[in-house]
């Protein structure tokens, strides 16, 4: 896909080792992470966690450990970001698990001060709602292909499917998403 402005900046920064505006970079990642989390959260966790909060947590973690990132390209960067995000979800899941066992009053993310949670843009909102309507495997393939930007071959290996099957699954997912978007927003 074509690179957007911020993405170009990040790619350039990664390649040249230049400094990039962290605030801008994190905000660039935010909608992607929100949608990613929408798709990634299991229904159980989804009841407890807001994708916005997961994205916020992940962004904070990314911010903290940005200095430790060793890669020099966009793909590696995304992989790294989503690995951090995965870890955050795991931590949060553990947190809720522990909470159940120990019955400790948790600090829930919905208590995050409103100012730190940037309102979702309309587009993100729309796509998120549509994603939530999709069956799990559709949502997943879109997540892997569009948000994590894995190649078809990579997804195929990950899921133990043939590349062809992934391709077709992806097409069906897109078609379903388009339908869901229509359901959601009327005329898209």
């Amino acid at each position, binding site marked *: 896909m074509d690179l*957007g402005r911020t993405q170009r900046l990040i790619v350039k920064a990664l390649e040249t080792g230049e400094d990039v505006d962290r605030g801008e970079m994190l905000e660039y990642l935010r909608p992607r992470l929100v*949608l990613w989390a929408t798709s990634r959260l299991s229904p159980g966790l989804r009841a407890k966690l807001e994708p916005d909060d997961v994205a916020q947590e992940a962004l904070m973690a990314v911010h903290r450990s940005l200095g430790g990132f060793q890669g020099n390209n966009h793909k590696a960067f995304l992989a790294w970001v989503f690995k951090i995000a995965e870890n955050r979800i795991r931590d949060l899941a553990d947190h809720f698990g522990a909470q159940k066992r120990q019955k400790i009053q948790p600090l829930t993310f919905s208590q995050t001060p409103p100012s730190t949670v940037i309102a979702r843009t309309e587009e993100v909102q729309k796509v998120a709602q549509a994603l939530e309507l999709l069956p799990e495997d559709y949502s997943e393939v879109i997540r892997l292909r569009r948000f994590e930007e894995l190649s078809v071959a990579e997804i195929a290996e990950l899921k133990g499917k043939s590349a062809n099957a992934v391709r077709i699954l992806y097409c069906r997912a*897109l078609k379903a998403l388009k339908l869901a978007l229509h359901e959601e927003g009327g005329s898209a």
Partner: protein
Amino acid sequence: MKHPGPDPAPRDNMTEEQLEHLLAEALEDYHRTKARGERPDDEAFRSRLGDAYGEFMELVAAETLIDQAIEPAGDESHLPLAWGAYTLLREIARGAAGVVYEAIHRKLGRKVALKVLRTGVDTDANARERFHREAKALAHVKHDHIVEIYEFGEIDGRPYYAMSLVDGPSLMQLEKSGKRPEPRDLCRGLAGVADALATLHAEGIIHRDVKPQNIIVGEDGRYMLADFGLARSAMSETMTQSGDALGTPLYMSPEQMLGDRKAIEARTDIYGLGASMYQLLTGVPPFKTDNLHALMRMILKERPVSPRRLLPELPKDCSDIALQCLEKARKDRYATAAALRDDLLAFAEDEPVRADPVGPVKRGLRLIGAHPALSAAAALLLGVGMWALLRPPSDVPLTLKSKVELVELEVKLEGVDGDYRPAADRVTYQVRPHQTYRAHVRAAEPGYEPEVETIEVGETGQTVQVVLIATQTSTLARKVGADLYREPLDLRKRESEKVHRGMTRASEDPPSFEPYLPRGPVAATHAGSWAVLLDGDLAVKDVYPKGAWLVFYVDGERIHAEPFPEPDDVSTRGRLPAAAAARLTPGVRCTWGLAGAKNAQPDERFRATFEVASAQVEKPLAPQLARIEALVAKTDADQQGPDRSAVGANLRAEAYFRAGLYASALAEIQPLLDADLEASFAAEDEGRELDQSTLRSSQYLIRLKELSILALFPSAKERLRTLVWNDLQMRDQTLFTTEEWEAFRLRQKK
């Protein structure tokens, strides 16, 4: 792009599964193509998919929607995916005035590049009309090297036009991917673009944004000119995105840099083509720096490095063509795009070219032409010396003529003079014709050095003037100068910070303007505000709430109230009525402040009491004004250059500025500025070159233009003041001796 009706692949005999395979593979190929930075060939996809093409485009549209969500394109609100008869597929480019989308006409199934005018606050009132006019004009132009306009109109109140989507990389992409064309091929290709420009110009259309990104190389190798009507307000884009490579106007001509809309004409496009050619030849733009302001200066004043210096093997003719296009003065460029086309073709065919850019020798002689800032009036303002190098066409004597001098100058002509000699009114040399001489100039007393030390004196058929600027640099003067001007320089910094931070912030944390008090008779001070009486004018600068009133009290009695004239301005100047001014005699304590309404009490934060200063405006400047008069009287009125009144006015304006008497200074310079602007507009209207020597406020004029581009300051007054602060350091002692300054400053401190 051609649109032959493709043979739809039969679909009836295809199973649903086969169809899915077809779509999935097509989508995958689509991505592969894009990942390589190429534009997918829609025709190929269409014929490959047949009836399924629509379905395929739906998938692409769904992806576009996701991509839009995860990578917001910018401040512009997103257009709906379906827009009028079109479906927008993706954003191709975004300019200041519009956005270009790749779109598909749903009924016709035709893929187009759709240009949509932005309708934001930054769109100027005539933009819509111009956009339409241009689209209409373009729709008539058919040219092999211009992308075809299919239709234009308005959807949801937003003007757009649709044009053919040219398959192929732009010259920029070509260059970046290392596939730089060979110079002859490049010139042959660009000749087509030049021919296209000639056609456009004949229709009265100026492209305004010719750059490598806007020249697309079609499948058949043809160079196509694309992207019209977006560059109109590129300047504002530049300003909002300073430092951002996307908005950096690397290929912009000097006249565009100056924001002089009336000066933009056919030769502006010739500059753009030259800049593109330069980039493609050398791999770098003619000028490059990270700093926008520096870039502006380079484009306005510096010559590009010759392409041959970067690429020694490049033929001189080719290099000359590019340089000729990149001349600062429009008259020095190719007169028409057709002439440029002919030269490009001539080079491509190994025939002699006519390009003859200004070389170093001529450059020395053209200082004035290329640099209006250094014209006669400027020399007077700078006050050190102005020289005329007179050389009759075939005569042997070379006359150096000193025109104005506040400091004696010495001159040495290399190979003729053994040592420097005093430069009297006229110095005449016997020199050989058709020979270039180097003249060195310096100040007779220590503490000055010329900005231009060496002038190449070559042959020329006409009288030329070369202006030299000397600046004082003695240690003592530096020390005094730094001391004197530290404050005003800080003021600039503080001001621009404030402008950027916004007024709210400033009022939370009022900056102290105490050190920045003007050097005039101070009328009022207060944290974050100052006021000064100027010839009965009142200038106020403050953190200023919207709709405020300016109120004055003497002895608890309200003597005057007036509204700020422009709600969004941060400063104003008003004349006190005679009755009120009469109350403000020296020594009287006056309270002034800003109130929310006419009859309200001034806000506590914006209230200050002051003692009306006793200094009169004329008094401290008496010696300067007398000196100026003498200088003006001495100026030979027969000489080329500004007339006496202009000389006096410029000098007086300078003196007033230096004394902090801005209103007086502005009053002196304003008529000249207005007249000069008028003259430059008139010249543009009549399509002739502006005779720089007739400009009378040149120094201020050009700086004003530059600063108005920067648009950092809300009013010309502010800009003017700032630019003068800027130059003060360089011009110490021109009008004020150190002792005078010291005395002046002491008086201020009291």
